[in-house]
């Protein structure tokens, strides 16, 4: 009998949930598709994905959410976010669902010379970040934004293969917000508790116990002490995506080596 401790729903249906079984093992479930079972000490008991799952989706799940949950038990940092790199440096885009992380990551790759590191899950290592996904994952509306570009298959949700790299040093964590339609995109600094809580909110968590929560706060604290946090405010305007992407990239990242 599993006691579910956190549940994500979409249109009333459970899409993901995390709980604890009577034997103390931790369980993460994507109903009908996959589940992960592990001990609190990080020992993985079972990684299951449905046989009907496409290979690409299986790889995404194993490299992204599964890895993030397993890493959190080893006190390693993984964040829910997107990341791109240019000139050997990366930025990590953080924001709640609907704040346009994937779309902005795609725009940074399409218009500002960046390469994708992660679309949904970012793993932190000793020398920087690596990604949980191989490809962008855009919904139909976001994919349609890039429909004029020659890299888009309008039927597909995925674009741009991610550059497979080991770890990329991080220049900044970037919190995404929207401003009014007439306002120009702006990059500003974020300090103190605002930075800490923003990172805390996006941390992967598998163990919902006091020790796990305390470790989470410590991990977030370590991260914001090491990496500057910025806020990127831009209009919710598809037409301004290219300009916004260039403003953000030019403010935080070195030029692309291939730039004139």
């Amino acid at each position, binding site marked *: 009998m599993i006691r579910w401790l956190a549940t994500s729903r979409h249109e009333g249906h459970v899409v993901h949930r995390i709980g604890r079984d009577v034997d103390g093992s931790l369980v993460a479930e994507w109903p009908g598709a996959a589940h992960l079972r592990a001990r609190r000490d990080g020992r993985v008991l079972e990684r299951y994905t449905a046989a009907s799952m496409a290979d690409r989706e299986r790889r995404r799940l194993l490299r992204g959410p599964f890895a993030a949950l397993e890493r959190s038990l080893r006190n390693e940092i993984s964040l829910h976010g997107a990341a791109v790199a240019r000139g050997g440096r990366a930025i990590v885009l953080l924001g709640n669902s609907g704040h346009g992380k994937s779309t902005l990551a795609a725009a940074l790759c399409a218009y500002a010379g960046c390469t994708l590191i992660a679309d949904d899950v970012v793993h932190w290592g000793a020398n920087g970040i690596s990604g949980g996904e191989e490809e962008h994952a855009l919904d139909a509306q976001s994919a349609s934004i890039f429909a004029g570009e020659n890299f888009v298959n309008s039927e597909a949700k995925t674009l741009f293969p991610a550059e497979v790299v080991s770890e990329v040093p991080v220049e900044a964590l970037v919190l995404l917000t929207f401003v009014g339609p007439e306002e120009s995109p702006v990059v500003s600094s974020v300090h103190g508790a605002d930075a800490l809580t923003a990172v*805390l909110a996006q941390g992967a968590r598998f163990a919902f116990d006091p020790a796990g929560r305390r470790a989470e*706060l410590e991990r977030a604290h370590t991260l914001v002490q090491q990496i500057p946090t910025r806020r990127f405010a831009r209009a919710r305007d598809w037409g301004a995506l290219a300009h916004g992407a260039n403003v953000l990239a030019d403010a935080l990242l070195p030029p692309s080596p291939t730039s004139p």
Partner: protein
Amino acid sequence: MTDPADLRLKLPTNVFTRRFEEDVVLLDLDSGEYFALDPLGARLLDALVSGKTSNEFAAGIDGEFDVEEGRLRADLGALVAELLKRKLVEQAAPAL
């Protein structure tokens, strides 16, 4: 009923704090809820855990801010009430 601003308070054992720059984040280890305090709130928390009441703290910083003392006391008292409501502070046992 005692004004929260006159209560002597302490951190419950299930609340963990982490300072970053001049701010403080309080984390309820049982519920996972966290709450951020700005620099003035962080100073208030320091004062509370050192045994002062909110009103005593307000009297000590009177004149530091361009705000009337009654307003300062009220704002700090409201913050204390919020921390109590969220169970991020609790009443200290009265001295014997």
